[in-house]
């Protein structure tokens, strides 16, 4: 912690500087070491029966086998609709919850099942920013107490140095350092979110889980906070798991994005690929549903893919592919075989038997060979399936959908 004792980083955010050229999204560095590797992580919440003996009658499969990596100093976006398990994923990584299964490797160490005592030092490394700044700050504590609490708990600086350090942090996030003795209600929504960010930065974490950090804010304030997060990330080299339902914000912030549906990752890719050439029918539908100012302004309007109905219950998810009940391409195989998260490009994985660009979905499953099944999803005798459902990183070789051959870089 020499950095912290010797001095504080220079203030980076000057929020009155409207059009500063400094703000920029982090770039995708394929060779960056991962700060976080999640493998086959699952979280099942038990559903209890009513009555005296509250026996467990089922499980909400909130997160069911997700694997991904967050590069050091980079950001991974996690998008999906409400109930898809993205927030649970964030909470598992911050270890506010203990996963039912799988591993969470943080800086080379599996933290999935550490005890509260063992987690203590880890809390300094992984911090969280919450959605609603009005409810995530204690209304009876001053900003100084809120931002200073982590310093006191972890005994990072002597007691008399806490206030000066808090003031420095407030300055970093673009607040007036003199306001450390005010209460949260005296600040506006955007300012409160800055306080939340200051609190998360207090211990100089390596990984920040940002769960819908701007969705409670007004549009004009959202951009201020996004720019601040980008500055903070670049300045301190923090890895971000950026959870949001707003596809445009995620695209702006994250060079790599994973799409979740009903507890599973259905597609993950670098942002250019995901937004311009999505291969999963769900990603395509999600993107087509976003109203687009700029298209509408020039008279154009993207054809919308209508998704009928609602997301099925995570207590009894559909067999095979979980999206099949709402998918217009679904066939027999989709009900029988769960599609593996198949790598189809250097940084692109998709979990669909009929993966393809919009309007170019193949008629025969692309996954037959990998899963060792025929086109109806029945196992082929003697086939050697090589399903790797849960590989968190990207391989050097992948299946080229155009040729049907495995190729490499």
């Amino acid at each position, binding site marked *: 912690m020499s950095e912290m004792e010797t001095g504080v980083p220079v203030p980076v955010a000057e929020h009155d500087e409207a059009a500063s050229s400094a703000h920029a999204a982090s770039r995708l560095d394929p060779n960056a070491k991962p700060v976080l590797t999640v493998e086959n992580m699952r979280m099942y919440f038990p559903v209890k029966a009513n009555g005296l003996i509250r026996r467990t009658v089922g499980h909400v499969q909130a997160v069911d086998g997700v694997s991904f990596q967050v590069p050091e100093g980079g950001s991974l976006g996690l998008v999906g*609709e409400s109930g898809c398990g993205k927030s649970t994923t964030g909470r598992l990584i911050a270890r506010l919850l203990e996963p039912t299964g799988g591993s969470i490797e943080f800086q080379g160490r599996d933290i999935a099942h550490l005890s509260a005592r063992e987690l203590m030092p880890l809390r300094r490394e992984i911090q969280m920013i919450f959605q609603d700044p009005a409810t995530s700050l204690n209304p009876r504590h001053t900003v100084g107490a809120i931002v200073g609490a982590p310093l006191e708990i972890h005994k990072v600086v002597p007691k008399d140095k806490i206030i000066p350090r808090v003031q420095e942090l407030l300055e970093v996030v673009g607040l007036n350092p003199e306001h450390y003795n005010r209460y949260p209600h005296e600040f506006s929504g955007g300012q409160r979110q800055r306080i939340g960010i200051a609190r998360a930065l207090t211990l100089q974490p390596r990984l920040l889980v940002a769960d819908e950090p701007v969705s409670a804010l007004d549009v004009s304030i959202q951009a201020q906070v996004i720019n601040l997060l980008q500055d903070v990330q670049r300045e301190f080299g923090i890895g971000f798991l950026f959870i949001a339902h707003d596809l445009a914000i995620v695209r702006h912030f994250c060079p790599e994005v994973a799409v979740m549906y009903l507890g599973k990752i259905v597609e993950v890719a670098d942002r250019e690929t995901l937004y311009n050439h999505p291969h999963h029918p769900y990603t395509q539908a999600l993107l087509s549903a976003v109203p687009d100012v700029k298209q509408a302004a020039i008279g154009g309007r993207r054809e919308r893919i209508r998704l009928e109905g609602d997301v099925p219950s995570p207590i009894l998810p559909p067999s095979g592919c979980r999206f099949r009940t709402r998918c217009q391409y679904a066939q027999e195989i989709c009900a029988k075989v769960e599609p593996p998260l198949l790598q189809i490009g250097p940084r692109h994985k998709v979990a669909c038997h009929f993966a393809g660009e919009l309007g170019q979905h193949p008629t025969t499953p692309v996954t037959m060979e990998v899963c060792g099944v025929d086109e109806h999803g029945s196992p082929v005798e003697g086939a050697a399936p090589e399903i790797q459902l849960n590989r968190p990183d990207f391989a050097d070789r992948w299946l080229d959908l155009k040729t049907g051959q495995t190729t490499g870089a």
Partner: protein
Amino acid sequence: MSFLSVRDLVVHFKTVDGVVKATEGLSYELERGKTLGIVGESGSGKSVSSSAILGLHRGTNALVSGEILLDGVDLLKINDESIRRKRGREVAMIFQDPLSAMHPYYTVGNQIAEAYRVHNDVSKKQARARTIEMLERVGIPQPDRRIDDYPHQFSGGMRQRAMIAMALINDPGLVIADEPTTALDVTVQAQILDLLQDLQREFNSAIIIITHDLGVVAEMADDVLVMYAGRAVEYGPTKEILVHPEMPYTWGLLSSVPDVVGDTDAKLIPIRGNPPSLLTPPSGCPFHPRCDHRDKVPGDLCRTTLPDLTPARAGGDHTKRCHIANPDEVYATEVLPEIAPLFEEQA
């Protein structure tokens, strides 16, 4: 004469801290079958001005003045009983959060049927049949069974559909949708917006859609009214305003929202500072403390004088409130290149 015509609407609230000037001199027109989008941040007066149409400020500490002419009748002049008869029948409202807008103790069907029975002399049975018909129309599966469900048994999207059924059951001429999709996921939002458009075609109603999402406005609205600090700052046809905005606040709204297409390196240019307090709104142009372009206006004009709503330079049926002499040129040369290279190519 327009179907709905709001003139010089003023809504003030007397509070212990002073008078909150929630809406100041707001005027707009709306025809049947057309949609008006009202855009602005929280506290810009967009909801307050619209609930004035329904007479929801009666009996509160609000002072409402001006004219709200619906089919030629001034809704501010008629008595409580008359406005009560119009509520739900001629003007209906769809609220943002259907969970808190519906009563948790009553079934969904009960609440929808009530809206119908209040205004029509029908039996319970007839009302129930009509409710089932309406639920089916808004796309709720198995409406004859779901009618007896409670609001918490519906998903968010279905609740909003039920709200729409409730609002439209009396075939009102004017529907006010206050952030109808803000609480919903994008795919559900798309469903609801499609539904609203279908129903509008079917019933030929006028819709006011209140939102902070320019994307929703772009898809839904024929006209846009941009509000800031209780005032209209830009008003006109949607396409005109999105392609040729002439008010720096509208520029700010456009440049601070990222997009799902176009340049990934495009910068977000936030509007600096915070929305003003309506207790003590800024002098002159209410936007001047946050405006990046006020140095283009000679002297202290922005700080001292409120600009009038004047016709936009680009023409069209489009007015704006700004002192800058050549806003169209400023936008084209300074703002547009910064925010959206894609915009230029295709426009």
